[in-house]
């Protein structure tokens, strides 16, 4: 019986040509699927030095090998490309239905190449692919655009699209599907640079599996395990809308551009407060947790604001950086980001950066179009979200991301830009959860909380071992464990939450084997090896682009200024031993002191084809 390695579609927007290809068996064995396929093809197909918003960059949109059937929480999708925000490898993950629909159309991924002469969208069906005129939806927000596409192609249509921010090449523009976003790294700007408004798929359920009978039996076990797990029960009730109760309590909720670790009014921001405005639940394809909590504002300045969210990161993004306690404003800002198509984390962080520059006198009312950026006042924040998405006034500067905005503002503004490799930090304070901070430092996409989430530091996780959250080099092994574990789970684009709900790795490996026909996937040690392989190939991609130890650093503030936590523990913490950490981390990874994978390591992982591309100093 033929192995089920998956097919993909290549769409060239410059020539209008499309072509269908199969994934070779060796790539399927070595990379499994999802994020593995993404980095394998991006590395192979992208020449080093390509301009991220140029015609030569490619955008890959992928589902996982288990997507589109009854298995729970494995139908997410991701976009992979070279980031316009960082110039490094980019991977951005999203929920909703698009991943399943891509599978129904017969594909595990699409590679978008070239640039259309005028705005277009791609329409896929089981019968073929068309590149169609998007003139009627260019300029529309993501809700309007998606409604129009459903009107054109019917209710069996799902899509991923960009909003006005992506069209205007906002460096952290997102790709939006329904009300979920592939938010980080600016993949929406890459889509916009190609004049591609949307990819719409009209299809009905139709999934190919190597051994459907075995797979379906395993999927039943998976559903049962997940539904009986405590994590599922918690997420069904709360989603992530109560995480701030914990992070404020332990002093790692970043406030005022990462100066404080606890919000002064944190009792007004609790999960219970958000629940008072909750009006519904939403979920991804084939996931009963329905962790997306819908909120509606019924009174006050923001009456009528309605959003699937904000979830934890967005709650933080629109309260922490400017120390606002107005949860209605956070809902309004979240909705605006979804409509315009922008990453809430980078948006909120860039706004917090602007507020601090205003406080310090580096920006004045003359620079901010008359807005008074004073802490605790959310109205200018909501105005700035719109200005950024439309690149109006000061919004045009902030749309470049904090790293580039600081460079253009000058006057020492760089000291207040809180990013790693250009990607703004998310909602966990590194000085109070140092394994999380060091994940930011070494993650291949920049400061991502999801790339190797340090649950040991943050909520007391005990695998592979408990940690002292203030320790540094001592936890390098745990940082690697978290990053490699995330990498192999993302071969199936398993939801970051559900990946901890009692069914991985054993059942995941067996399901992969039944879906693909590759027995090796049932070996847990092999899954870890694949995680290591993915991470190293992504690192090699970055090294080929000129990255090395120099870019592996937290912002200076976190290395030099003590954290203030108000009533929470961790007062005075600072990141003191970054160099020691990097030495230890690189050694454990099998990299040189400059952070470059050694030939021995690359050969051990079957990545010998990388050797000619990167400058290895020593083995």
């Amino acid at each position, binding site marked *: 019986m033929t192995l089920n390695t998956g097919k993909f579609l290549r769409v060239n927007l410059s020539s209008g040509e499309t072509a269908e290809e199969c994934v070779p068996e060796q790539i399927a064995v070595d990379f499994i699927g999802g994020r593995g396929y993404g980095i394998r093809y991006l590395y192979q197909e992208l020449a080093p030095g390509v301009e991220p918003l140029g015609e030569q960059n490619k955008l890959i949109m992928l589902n996982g090998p288990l997507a589109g059937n009854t298995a729970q929480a494995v139908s997410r999708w991701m976009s992979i490309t070279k980031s316009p925000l960082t110039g490094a490898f980019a991977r951005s993950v999203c929920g909703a239905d698009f991943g399943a629909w891509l599978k129904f159309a017969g594909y595990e991924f699409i590679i978008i190449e070239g640039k259309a002469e005028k705005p277009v969208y791609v329409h896929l069906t089981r019968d073929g692919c068309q590149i169609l005129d998007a003139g009627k939806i260019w300029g529309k927000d993501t809700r309007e655009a998606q409604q129009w596409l459903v009107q054109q192609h019917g209710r069996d249509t799902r899509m991923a699209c960009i909003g006005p921010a992506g069209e205007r090449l906002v460096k952290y523009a997102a790709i939006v599907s329904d009300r979920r976003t592939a938010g980080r790294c600016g993949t929406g700007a890459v889509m916009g640079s190609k004049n591609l408004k949307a990819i719409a798929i009209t299809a009905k359920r139709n999934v190919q599996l190597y051994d459907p009978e075995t797979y379906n039996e395993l999927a039943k076990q998976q559903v049962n395990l997940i539904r009986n797990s*405590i994590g599922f029960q*918690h997420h069904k009730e709360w989603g992530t809308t109560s995480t701030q109760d914990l992070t404020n*309590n*332990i002093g790692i909720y970043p406030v005022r551009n990462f100066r404080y670790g606890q919000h002064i009014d944190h009792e007004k921001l609790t999960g219970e407060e958000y629940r008072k405005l909750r009006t519904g639940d939403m979920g991804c394809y084939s996931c009963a947790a329905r962790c997306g909590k819908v909120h509606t504002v019924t009174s006050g300045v923001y009456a009528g604001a309605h959003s699937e969210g904000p979830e934890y990161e967005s709650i*933080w993004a629109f309260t922490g950086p400017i120390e606002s306690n107005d949860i209605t404003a956070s809902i309004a800002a979240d909705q605006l980001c979804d409509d315009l198509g922008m990453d809430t984390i980078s948006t909120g962080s860039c706004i917090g950066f602007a507020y601090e520059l205003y406080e310090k006198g580096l920006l004045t009312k003359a620079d901010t179009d008359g807005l008074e950026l004073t802490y605790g006042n959310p109205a200018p924040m909501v105005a700035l979200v719109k200005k950024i998405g439309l690149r109006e006034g000061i919004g045009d500067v902030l749309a470049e991301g904090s790293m580039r905005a600081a460079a253009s503002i000058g006057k020492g503004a760089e000291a207040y830009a809180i990013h790693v490799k250009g990607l703004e930090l998310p*909602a966990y304070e590194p000085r109070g959860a140092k394994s999380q901070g060091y994940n930011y430092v070494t993650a291949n996409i920049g400061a991502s909380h999801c790339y190797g989430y340090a649950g040991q530091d*943050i*909520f007391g996780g005990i695998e592979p071992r408990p940690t002292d959250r203030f320790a540094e080099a001592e936890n390098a092994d745990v940082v690697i464990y978290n990053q490699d574990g995330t990498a192999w789970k993302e071969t199936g684009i398993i939801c970051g939450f559900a990946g901890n709900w009692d069914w991985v790795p054993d059942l995941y490996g067996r399901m992969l084997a039944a879906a693909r026909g590759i027995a090796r996937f049932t070996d847990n040690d092999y899954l870890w090896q694949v995680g290591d392989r993915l991470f190293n190939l992504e690192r090699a991609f970055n090294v080929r682009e000129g990255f090395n130890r120099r870019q592996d650093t937290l912002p200076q503030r976190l290395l030099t200024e003590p954290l203030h936590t108000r009533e929470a*523990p961790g007062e005075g913490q600072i990141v003191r031993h970054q160099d020691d950490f990097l030495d230890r981390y690189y050694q454990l990874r099998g990299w040189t002191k400059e952070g470059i994978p050694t030939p021995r390591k690359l050969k051990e992982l079957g990545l010998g084809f990388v050797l000619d591309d990167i400058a290895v100093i020593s083995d």
Partner: protein
Amino acid sequence: MSVEINIPTFLQHLTSDVKVVDVKGRTVGECFADLIKKYPQLKARLYTKRGRLLKSLNVFVNGESVYPETLTKPVNDGDIIQIVYVVIGG
């Protein structure tokens, strides 16, 4: 009978930074009751107002999750209890 409870970082400020507490009890619930005698502020961080363990907490005995028994799970002399917050990410 002595059982050890490892206090997670997010609760240590309520135990004066004590990381490990020795308690007595035949079940997880009895051990928690003894813990709360020593540190009364923990009660509101472990239980709802109706006396049920918060859904956001998971409990491990000797590294194994004891959900869904949890509070009725028997413990033995020398066992180690860990309290884990189940929320991940956001």
